[in-house]
Protein backbone atom coordinates (compact mmCIF):
# COMPACT_ATOMS: atom_id res chain seq x y z
CA UNK A 1 0.00 0.00 0.00
CA UNK A 2 1.47 3.36 -0.92
CA UNK A 3 1.44 6.20 1.58
CA UNK A 4 -0.87 8.24 -0.59
CA UNK A 5 -3.70 5.77 0.04
CA UNK A 6 -3.40 6.00 3.81
CA UNK A 7 -5.67 8.44 5.57
CA UNK A 8 -3.79 10.73 7.90
CA UNK A 9 -4.96 10.40 11.49
CA UNK A 10 -2.42 11.42 14.10
CA UNK A 11 -4.26 9.38 16.75
CA UNK A 12 -3.77 6.20 14.71
CA UNK A 13 -0.16 7.17 14.15
CA UNK A 14 0.38 7.57 17.87
CA UNK A 15 -1.31 4.22 18.58
CA UNK A 16 0.84 2.41 16.00
CA UNK A 17 3.88 4.11 17.51
CA UNK A 18 3.08 2.72 20.98
CA UNK A 19 2.70 -0.84 19.69
CA UNK A 20 5.74 -0.48 17.42
CA UNK A 21 7.97 0.95 20.14
CA UNK A 22 7.02 -1.89 22.50
CA UNK A 23 8.09 -4.41 19.86
CA UNK A 24 11.25 -2.53 18.85
CA UNK A 25 12.60 -2.06 22.35
CA UNK A 26 11.85 -5.64 23.42
CA UNK A 27 13.49 -6.92 20.23
CA UNK A 28 16.61 -4.95 21.16
CA UNK A 29 16.62 -6.29 24.72
CA UNK A 30 16.00 -9.88 23.64
CA UNK A 31 18.66 -9.69 20.94
CA UNK A 32 21.21 -9.06 23.69
CA UNK A 33 20.88 -12.76 24.60
CA UNK A 34 22.26 -14.00 21.30
CA UNK A 35 25.47 -15.94 21.99
CA UNK A 36 24.79 -15.73 25.75
CA UNK A 37 21.83 -18.11 26.24
CA UNK A 38 22.30 -21.26 28.35
CA UNK A 39 22.39 -23.48 25.26
CA UNK A 40 22.84 -22.90 21.54
CA UNK A 41 19.26 -24.05 20.93
CA UNK A 42 17.91 -21.35 23.23
CA UNK A 43 20.15 -18.79 21.51
CA UNK A 44 18.27 -19.52 18.32
CA UNK A 45 14.88 -19.56 20.01
CA UNK A 46 15.49 -16.13 21.55
CA UNK A 47 16.97 -14.86 18.29
CA UNK A 48 13.88 -15.98 16.38
CA UNK A 49 11.65 -14.37 18.97
CA UNK A 50 13.56 -11.08 18.83
CA UNK A 51 13.40 -11.05 15.03
CA UNK A 52 9.65 -11.68 15.12
CA UNK A 53 9.30 -8.63 17.35
CA UNK A 54 11.58 -6.60 15.09
CA UNK A 55 9.40 -7.54 12.11
CA UNK A 56 6.31 -6.34 13.98
CA UNK A 57 8.12 -3.13 14.87
CA UNK A 58 9.07 -2.49 11.26
CA UNK A 59 5.49 -2.83 10.05
CA UNK A 60 4.05 -0.77 12.89
CA UNK A 61 6.62 2.04 12.72
CA UNK A 62 6.33 2.27 8.94
CA UNK A 63 2.59 2.63 9.35
CA UNK A 64 2.99 5.12 12.21
CA UNK A 65 5.08 7.41 10.00
CA UNK A 66 2.44 7.24 7.27
CA UNK A 67 -0.62 7.60 9.48
CA UNK A 68 0.70 10.60 11.40
CA UNK A 69 1.29 12.43 8.12
CA UNK A 70 4.95 13.11 8.90
CA UNK A 71 6.26 10.81 6.19
CA UNK A 72 8.95 9.52 8.57
CA UNK A 73 10.33 6.09 7.67
CA UNK A 74 10.74 3.17 10.06
CA UNK A 75 14.44 4.07 10.30
CA UNK A 76 13.71 7.74 11.02
CA UNK A 77 11.48 6.65 13.87
CA UNK A 78 13.77 3.95 15.27
CA UNK A 79 17.09 5.77 15.01
CA UNK A 80 16.42 9.48 15.09
CA UNK A 81 14.02 10.01 17.95
CA UNK A 82 15.19 10.84 21.46
CA UNK A 83 14.17 9.07 24.63
CA UNK A 84 11.20 11.30 25.48
CA UNK A 85 9.68 10.64 22.04
CA UNK A 86 9.54 6.87 22.56
CA UNK A 87 6.11 5.55 23.52
CA UNK A 88 6.95 2.04 24.73
CA UNK A 89 5.89 0.80 28.14
CA UNK A 90 8.65 0.59 30.74
CA UNK A 91 8.38 -3.19 31.06
CA UNK A 92 10.11 -3.77 27.72
CA UNK A 93 13.08 -1.47 28.42
CA UNK A 94 14.15 -3.09 31.71
CA UNK A 95 17.47 -4.92 31.55
CA UNK A 96 16.85 -8.59 30.81
CA UNK A 97 18.48 -9.81 34.03
CA UNK A 98 19.09 -13.54 34.37
CA UNK A 99 17.32 -16.22 32.33
CA UNK A 100 14.47 -16.40 34.85
CA UNK A 101 13.76 -12.67 34.70
CA UNK A 102 14.07 -12.79 30.92
CA UNK A 103 11.47 -15.52 30.67
CA UNK A 104 9.22 -13.76 33.20
CA UNK A 105 9.15 -10.57 31.13
CA UNK A 106 8.82 -12.30 27.76
CA UNK A 107 6.05 -14.58 29.00
CA UNK A 108 3.93 -11.80 30.49
CA UNK A 109 4.46 -9.58 27.48
CA UNK A 110 3.68 -12.36 24.98
CA UNK A 111 0.52 -13.20 26.94
CA UNK A 112 -0.52 -9.54 26.68
CA UNK A 113 0.38 -9.35 22.98
CA UNK A 114 -1.55 -12.52 22.26
CA UNK A 115 -4.75 -11.06 23.69
CA UNK A 116 -4.06 -7.71 21.99
CA UNK A 117 -3.47 -9.07 18.50
CA UNK A 118 -6.26 -11.63 18.68
CA UNK A 119 -8.63 -8.64 19.04
CA UNK A 120 -6.80 -6.22 16.77
CA UNK A 121 -7.34 -8.59 13.82
CA UNK A 122 -10.93 -7.25 13.83
CA UNK A 123 -9.83 -3.61 13.74
CA UNK A 124 -11.69 -1.24 11.41
CA UNK A 125 -8.22 -0.12 10.34
CA UNK A 126 -7.19 -2.56 7.58
CA UNK A 127 -3.45 -2.06 8.04
CA UNK A 128 -3.52 -2.66 11.80
CA UNK A 129 -5.74 -5.70 11.26
CA UNK A 130 -3.30 -7.15 8.71
CA UNK A 131 -0.26 -6.55 10.92
CA UNK A 132 -2.09 -8.18 13.84
CA UNK A 133 -3.05 -11.24 11.78
CA UNK A 134 0.58 -11.91 10.88
CA UNK A 135 1.88 -11.20 14.38
CA UNK A 136 -0.73 -13.32 16.15
CA UNK A 137 0.83 -16.63 15.05
CA UNK A 138 4.26 -15.41 16.10
CA UNK A 139 3.23 -14.33 19.59
CA UNK A 140 1.19 -17.50 20.08
CA UNK A 141 4.49 -19.37 19.83
CA UNK A 142 6.30 -16.85 22.05
CA UNK A 143 3.66 -17.32 24.72
CA UNK A 144 3.87 -21.08 24.46
CA UNK A 145 7.67 -21.29 24.47
CA UNK A 146 8.26 -18.83 27.30
CA UNK A 147 5.36 -20.32 29.29
CA UNK A 148 7.01 -23.73 29.03
CA UNK A 149 10.17 -22.27 30.53
CA UNK A 150 8.27 -20.53 33.32
CA UNK A 151 6.71 -23.88 34.26
CA UNK A 152 9.97 -25.82 33.99
CA UNK A 153 11.94 -23.35 36.08
CA UNK A 154 9.15 -22.63 38.56
CA UNK A 155 8.34 -26.30 39.11
CA UNK A 156 11.98 -27.40 38.76
CA UNK A 157 14.68 -27.41 41.40
CA UNK A 158 14.74 -25.31 44.54
CA UNK A 159 17.26 -22.97 42.91
CA UNK A 160 15.37 -22.61 39.62
CA UNK A 161 12.15 -21.93 41.52
CA UNK A 162 13.84 -19.27 43.62
CA UNK A 163 15.29 -17.51 40.59
CA UNK A 164 12.09 -17.74 38.53
CA UNK A 165 10.14 -16.22 41.42
CA UNK A 166 12.81 -13.52 41.82
CA UNK A 167 12.48 -12.74 38.12
CA UNK A 168 8.74 -12.28 38.48
CA UNK A 169 9.22 -10.06 41.52
CA UNK A 170 11.61 -7.85 39.51
CA UNK A 171 9.29 -7.21 36.59
CA UNK A 172 5.95 -7.13 38.39
CA UNK A 173 5.92 -3.40 39.30
CA UNK A 174 5.96 -2.73 35.53
CA UNK A 175 3.13 -5.06 34.49
CA UNK A 176 0.10 -2.88 35.31
CA UNK A 177 1.20 -0.25 32.79
CA UNK A 178 0.33 -2.69 29.98
CA UNK A 179 -3.35 -2.41 30.88
CA UNK A 180 -3.59 1.36 31.34
CA UNK A 181 -6.04 3.28 29.21
CA UNK A 182 -6.03 6.95 28.32
CA UNK A 183 -8.18 9.23 26.17
CA UNK A 184 -6.39 8.25 22.99
CA UNK A 185 -7.00 4.51 23.22
CA UNK A 186 -10.55 4.75 24.57
CA UNK A 187 -11.43 7.09 21.69
CA UNK A 188 -9.83 4.79 19.10
CA UNK A 189 -11.35 1.72 20.74
CA UNK A 190 -14.79 3.31 20.55
CA UNK A 191 -14.19 3.82 16.83
CA UNK A 192 -13.34 0.11 16.46
CA UNK A 193 -9.74 0.87 15.51
CA UNK A 194 -7.75 0.15 18.66
CA UNK A 195 -8.09 -2.34 21.50
CA UNK A 196 -8.59 -0.78 24.92
CA UNK A 197 -5.69 -2.12 27.06
CA UNK A 198 -8.02 -2.27 30.08
CA UNK A 199 -10.01 -4.99 28.29
CA UNK A 200 -6.86 -7.13 28.02
CA UNK A 201 -6.20 -7.24 31.75
CA UNK A 202 -8.69 -10.01 32.56
CA UNK A 203 -7.90 -12.46 29.75
CA UNK A 204 -4.12 -11.91 29.95
CA UNK A 205 -4.00 -12.45 33.69
CA UNK A 206 -6.24 -15.53 33.48
CA UNK A 207 -3.66 -17.20 31.25
CA UNK A 208 -0.71 -15.94 33.28
CA UNK A 209 -2.20 -17.16 36.55
CA UNK A 210 -2.96 -20.60 35.11
CA UNK A 211 0.71 -20.96 34.16
CA UNK A 212 1.83 -19.69 37.57
CA UNK A 213 -0.36 -22.30 39.23
CA UNK A 214 1.25 -25.09 37.22
CA UNK A 215 4.68 -23.56 37.86
CA UNK A 216 4.01 -23.33 41.64
CA UNK A 217 4.84 -19.60 41.46
CA UNK A 218 3.19 -16.80 43.41
CA UNK A 219 1.83 -13.69 41.75
CA UNK A 220 3.89 -10.86 43.26
CA UNK A 221 2.15 -8.04 45.10
CA UNK A 222 4.49 -5.06 44.76
CA UNK A 223 4.01 -2.03 47.01
CA UNK A 224 3.89 0.32 44.03
CA UNK A 225 3.59 0.27 40.25
CA UNK A 226 5.54 2.23 37.64
CA UNK A 227 4.14 3.84 34.55
CA UNK A 228 4.63 6.73 32.16
CA UNK A 229 6.15 5.12 29.05
CA UNK A 230 3.19 6.07 26.86
CA UNK A 231 3.89 9.73 27.73
CA UNK A 232 7.62 9.41 27.07
CA UNK A 233 8.68 8.92 30.70
CA UNK A 234 11.25 6.15 30.84
CA UNK A 235 13.57 4.43 33.28
CA UNK A 236 17.25 5.19 33.57
CA UNK A 237 18.04 2.12 31.48
CA UNK A 238 16.28 3.46 28.38
CA UNK A 239 19.05 5.93 27.54
CA UNK A 240 21.70 3.20 27.51
CA UNK A 241 19.49 0.98 25.36
CA UNK A 242 18.91 3.75 22.81
CA UNK A 243 22.62 4.63 22.75
CA UNK A 244 23.42 1.10 21.63
CA UNK A 245 20.44 0.87 19.26
CA UNK A 246 21.01 4.23 17.58
CA UNK A 247 24.78 4.66 17.70
CA UNK A 248 25.60 3.25 14.26
CA UNK A 249 22.79 4.98 12.38
CA UNK A 250 23.64 8.34 13.95
CA UNK A 251 27.41 8.02 13.45
CA UNK A 252 26.99 7.08 9.81
CA UNK A 253 23.73 8.61 8.55
CA UNK A 254 22.46 6.94 5.43
CA UNK A 255 24.85 4.00 5.78
CA UNK A 256 23.89 0.96 3.69
CA UNK A 257 24.86 -2.70 3.94
Amino acid at each position, binding site marked *: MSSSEIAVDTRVGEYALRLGDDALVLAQRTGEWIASA*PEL*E*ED*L*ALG*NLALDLLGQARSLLTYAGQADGSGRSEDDLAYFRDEREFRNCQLVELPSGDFGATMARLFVFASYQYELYSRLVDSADQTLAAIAAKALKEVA*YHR*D*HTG*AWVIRLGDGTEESHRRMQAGLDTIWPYVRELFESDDLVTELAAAGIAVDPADLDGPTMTHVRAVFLEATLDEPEPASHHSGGRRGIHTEQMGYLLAELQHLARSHPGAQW
Partner: protein
Amino acid sequence: MSTTSWPLWEVFVRARRGLSHVHVGSLHAPDAAMALRNARDVYTRRGEGVSIWVIPADQIAASSPDEKDAYFDPADDKVYRHPTFYHVPDGVEHL
Protein backbone atom coordinates in the same frame (compact mmCIF):
# COMPACT_ATOMS: atom_id res chain seq x y z
CA MET B 1 27.06 -22.06 30.16
CA SER B 2 25.72 -25.09 31.96
CA THR B 3 28.24 -27.58 33.24
CA THR B 4 26.14 -30.64 32.47
CA SER B 5 24.86 -30.90 28.92
CA TRP B 6 21.31 -31.74 27.99
CA PRO B 7 20.75 -35.09 26.25
CA LEU B 8 21.14 -35.32 22.48
CA TRP B 9 18.13 -35.73 20.20
CA GLU B 10 17.97 -36.60 16.52
CA VAL B 11 15.59 -34.51 14.44
CA PHE B 12 13.51 -35.66 11.47
CA VAL B 13 11.51 -33.20 9.38
CA ARG B 14 8.79 -33.89 6.82
CA ALA B 15 9.09 -31.24 4.12
CA ARG B 16 5.51 -31.61 2.92
CA ARG B 17 2.58 -33.97 2.90
CA GLY B 18 3.28 -37.25 1.14
CA LEU B 19 7.04 -37.23 1.74
CA SER B 20 8.71 -39.14 4.56
CA HIS B 21 10.43 -37.58 7.52
CA VAL B 22 14.10 -37.06 6.72
CA HIS B 23 16.94 -36.78 9.22
CA VAL B 24 18.11 -33.17 9.32
CA GLY B 25 20.45 -33.08 12.29
CA SER B 26 20.58 -33.18 16.05
CA LEU B 27 20.19 -30.90 19.04
CA HIS B 28 20.26 -30.79 22.82
CA ALA B 29 17.13 -30.55 24.97
CA PRO B 30 16.13 -31.50 28.51
CA ASP B 31 13.03 -33.44 27.44
CA ALA B 32 10.88 -34.38 24.46
CA ALA B 33 8.56 -31.37 24.60
CA MET B 34 11.48 -28.94 24.66
CA ALA B 35 13.28 -30.96 21.98
CA LEU B 36 10.31 -30.42 19.65
CA ARG B 37 10.32 -26.70 20.32
CA ASN B 38 14.08 -26.48 19.83
CA ALA B 39 13.78 -28.45 16.59
CA ARG B 40 11.20 -25.95 15.39
CA ASP B 41 13.52 -23.08 16.24
CA VAL B 42 16.71 -24.63 14.89
CA TYR B 43 15.60 -26.58 11.82
CA THR B 44 12.40 -25.02 10.44
CA ARG B 45 13.28 -21.33 10.44
CA ARG B 46 13.03 -21.04 6.66
CA GLY B 47 9.83 -22.96 6.07
CA GLU B 48 11.51 -26.36 5.75
CA GLY B 49 8.77 -28.48 7.20
CA VAL B 50 5.21 -29.33 8.14
CA SER B 51 5.95 -32.03 10.72
CA ILE B 52 8.79 -32.84 13.12
CA TRP B 53 9.89 -36.02 14.89
CA VAL B 54 12.51 -36.02 17.63
CA ILE B 55 14.12 -39.21 18.94
CA PRO B 56 16.60 -39.58 21.81
CA ALA B 57 19.94 -40.24 20.13
CA ASP B 58 20.74 -43.05 22.59
CA GLN B 59 17.57 -44.87 21.54
CA ILE B 60 18.83 -45.35 18.00
CA ALA B 61 20.56 -48.68 17.32
CA ALA B 62 23.17 -48.15 14.62
CA SER B 63 25.28 -50.53 12.58
CA SER B 64 28.97 -50.29 13.37
CA PRO B 65 31.49 -49.05 10.79
CA ASP B 66 33.61 -52.12 11.73
CA GLU B 67 30.88 -54.40 10.45
CA LYS B 68 30.56 -52.55 7.17
CA ASP B 69 32.27 -55.28 5.07
CA ALA B 70 30.16 -58.11 6.43
CA TYR B 71 27.00 -56.10 6.31
CA PHE B 72 27.07 -54.45 2.94
CA ASP B 73 29.73 -55.85 0.61
CA PRO B 74 27.93 -59.16 -0.06
CA ALA B 75 25.17 -57.19 -1.77
CA ASP B 76 27.57 -55.73 -4.31
CA ASP B 77 27.72 -58.74 -6.66
CA LYS B 78 24.10 -59.88 -6.45
CA VAL B 79 23.01 -58.19 -9.62
CA TYR B 80 20.07 -60.63 -9.89
CA ARG B 81 18.47 -58.83 -6.96
CA HIS B 82 17.87 -55.83 -9.15
CA PRO B 83 14.73 -55.96 -11.23
CA THR B 84 16.64 -55.39 -14.45
CA PHE B 85 15.99 -58.71 -16.18
CA TYR B 86 12.41 -58.08 -17.14
CA HIS B 87 11.21 -56.78 -20.45
CA VAL B 88 8.44 -54.31 -19.97
CA PRO B 89 5.86 -54.81 -22.71
CA ASP B 90 5.04 -51.77 -24.77
CA GLY B 91 1.97 -49.94 -23.63
CA VAL B 92 2.29 -50.67 -19.93
CA GLU B 93 1.73 -47.46 -18.09
CA HIS B 94 2.34 -46.39 -14.51
CA LEU B 95 5.43 -48.53 -14.02
